[in-house]
């Protein structure tokens, strides 16, 4: 193995660009590692942690780029380093050609766009609070995509925003829609009468895609950050967003999504919403509230379907499957091949993983949430911080799932696996061909006879998304992967494959 280290002085690149280039170059067989980081203190620690530090890399300062390549030969390490540098400089050259002015300061930016009303921030977390605070001072609403923002900073920024009647979406806010405009990882959806408030990125994506599929659209969808309904943050932005949507003439029904909120926050939200004329449909992932202020739903799909019925003046009756005949046919065809075997879920969306864990554990018993736990069934959120250190989120770069699948096969952990459950989240910002990436890894493992399990995929997206959802589904179909558009249906179907005892109940409810 040969290792090359190159330092590019005084060149700032954002981490997603670096990680994208690195993961593209790493796909070559003779390249075992490509690490590209700015020389910040945190990144030096990270390089040391993964054993990639070199004498030369230590010389890099926070504004210098470090490129480390580990390859089969010195020549390949060197040529790949050069490829990396040209890929980055080509990107910058392209930007220069656009001749658009890029101000260095917020004041200069406001000089060019004086009536700007929103700042979208996606910079490293350690600097995000400082920049967000400056934006609030200038009267800008904030969409904060960055993660790793301290809880104390979140609370102080949200309080500051509230005092100025500004929205503070985030931190770690993946998706939002304001007046029909999608921000971050956004699916292309219709505008409509349903307003959403979400402390969950992929949960929001699943709901807006389901609304779109049911023919309805979204007025606004406000991301509030995963911790907003915790006791510490106290629902600061959820409360404000609820007030805004209640008064918004375009919004007829509100959907509120979050992991189980703290009891004091629920109490305050119930007190607020009990005065509302707009109905609020809630989905709190596994939490059932004693009160009836909210129209409570158990799953993301049920939340969407309930809201659609509400705007159309109908009551919603939840069913486990919308097409029970298809499920009967599938079960008949699959028989009991997966019965009693392990379920392995590898998700890119955290809320989708959580929902699958909840539904599966109801029928199958304990379901582990990380590879370290040694329970039989496992559903992992590969977007969790522990799997994304120094890597892009798996929605951008699903190669991490491929690597995990291969790793599990090599350690024999797929030998007793009856079903593999995965998600593909489409939309702006996401990988452009996740189906192909998945199918290639499945076919490799099938050829090596290391995978005989049934593969079930839930695809979250809309026909207008850049990935072409129909083409994505065809690729999966052709590879013998069973595709669902609803996360809860996919999880229930998987439960029925692994535990035939629950089939009768589900099918009875569905018919």
């Amino acid at each position, binding site marked *: 193995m040969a290792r090359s280290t190159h330092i590019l002085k005084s060149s700032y690149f*954002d981490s997603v660009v670096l990680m994208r280039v690195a993961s593209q170059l790493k796909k070559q067989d003779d390249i075992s590692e490509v690490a590209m980081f700015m020389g910040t203190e945190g990144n030096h620690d990270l390089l040391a942690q993964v054993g990639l530090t070199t004498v030369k890399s230590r010389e890099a300062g*926070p*504004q210098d780029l470090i490129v480390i390549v580990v390859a089969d030969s010195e020549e390949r390490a060197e040529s790949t380093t050069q490829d990396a540098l040209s890929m980055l400089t080509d990107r910058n050259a392209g930007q220069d050609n656009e001749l658009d*002015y890029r101000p260095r300061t917020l004041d200069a930016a406001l000089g060019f766009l004086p009536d700007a009303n*929103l*700042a979208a921030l996606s910079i490293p977390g350690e600097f995000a609070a*400082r920049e967000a605070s400056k934006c609030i001072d200038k009267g800008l609403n904030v969409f904060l995509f960055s993660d790793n923002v301290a809880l104390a900073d979140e609370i102080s920024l949200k309080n500051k925003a509230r005092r100025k009647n500004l929205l503070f979406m985030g931190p770690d806010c993946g998706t939002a829609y304001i007046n029909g405009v999608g921000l971050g990882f956004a699916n292309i959806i219709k505008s409509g009468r349903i307003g959403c408030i979400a402390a969950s990125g992929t949960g929001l994506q699943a709901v807006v895609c389901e609304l779109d599929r049911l023919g309805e659209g979204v*007025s606004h969808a406000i991301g509030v950050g995963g911790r907003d309904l915790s006791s510490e943050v106290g629902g600061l932005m959820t409360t404000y967003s609820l007030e*805004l949507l209640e008064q918004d003439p375009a919004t007829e029904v509100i959907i509120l999504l979050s992991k189980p909120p703290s009891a004091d926050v629920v109490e305050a939200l119930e007190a607020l919403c009990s005065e509302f004329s707009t109905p609020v449909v809630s989905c709190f992932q596994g939490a059932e509230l004693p009160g009836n202020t909210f129209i409570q739903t158990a799953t993301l799909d049920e939340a969407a379907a309930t809201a659609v019925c509400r705007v159309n003046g109908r009551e919603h009756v939840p069913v486990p499957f919308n097409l029970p005949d298809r499920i009967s046919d599938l079960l008949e065809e699959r028989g009991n091949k997966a019965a009693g075997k392990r379920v392995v879920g590898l998700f890119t969306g955290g809320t989708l993983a959580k929902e699958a864990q909840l539904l599966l554990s109801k029928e199958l018993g304990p379901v582990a949430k990380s590879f370290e736990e040694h329970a039989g069934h496992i559903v992992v959120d590969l977007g969790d911080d522990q799997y994304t250190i120094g890597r892009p989120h798996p929605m951008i770069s699903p190669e991490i799932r491929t690597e995990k699948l291969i790793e599990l096969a090599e350690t024999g952990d797929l030998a007793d696996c009856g079903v593999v459950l995965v998600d593909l989240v489409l939309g702006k910002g996401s990988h452009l061909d996740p189906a192909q990436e998945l199918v290639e890894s499945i076919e490799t493992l099938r050829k090596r006879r290391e995978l005989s399990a049934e593969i079930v995929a839930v695809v979250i997206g809309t026909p207008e998304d850049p990935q072409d959802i129909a083409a994505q589904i065809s690729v999966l179909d052709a590879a013998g992967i069973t595709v669902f558009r609803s996360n809860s249906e996919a999880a229930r179907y998987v439960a029925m494959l692994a535990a035939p005892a629950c089939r009768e109940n589900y099918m009875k409810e569905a018919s």
Partner: protein
Amino acid sequence: MKPDQSLLQQPIRVINIGLESFSEDLRKAEIPVIQMDWRPPAGGDLRLVALLDSLAEEA
């Protein structure tokens, strides 16, 4: 609160600080957006940043 002044009642106009692709997506949707050339302040030295901020506060 004055709801008529909230973000929800206005066409959005964005200052994008960070990922270029967000600006590109907004431009495609014909939303006014300005991309900032953001770089870590004080050369990325967090201690120096804190020091500068406290000096600015005192001033």
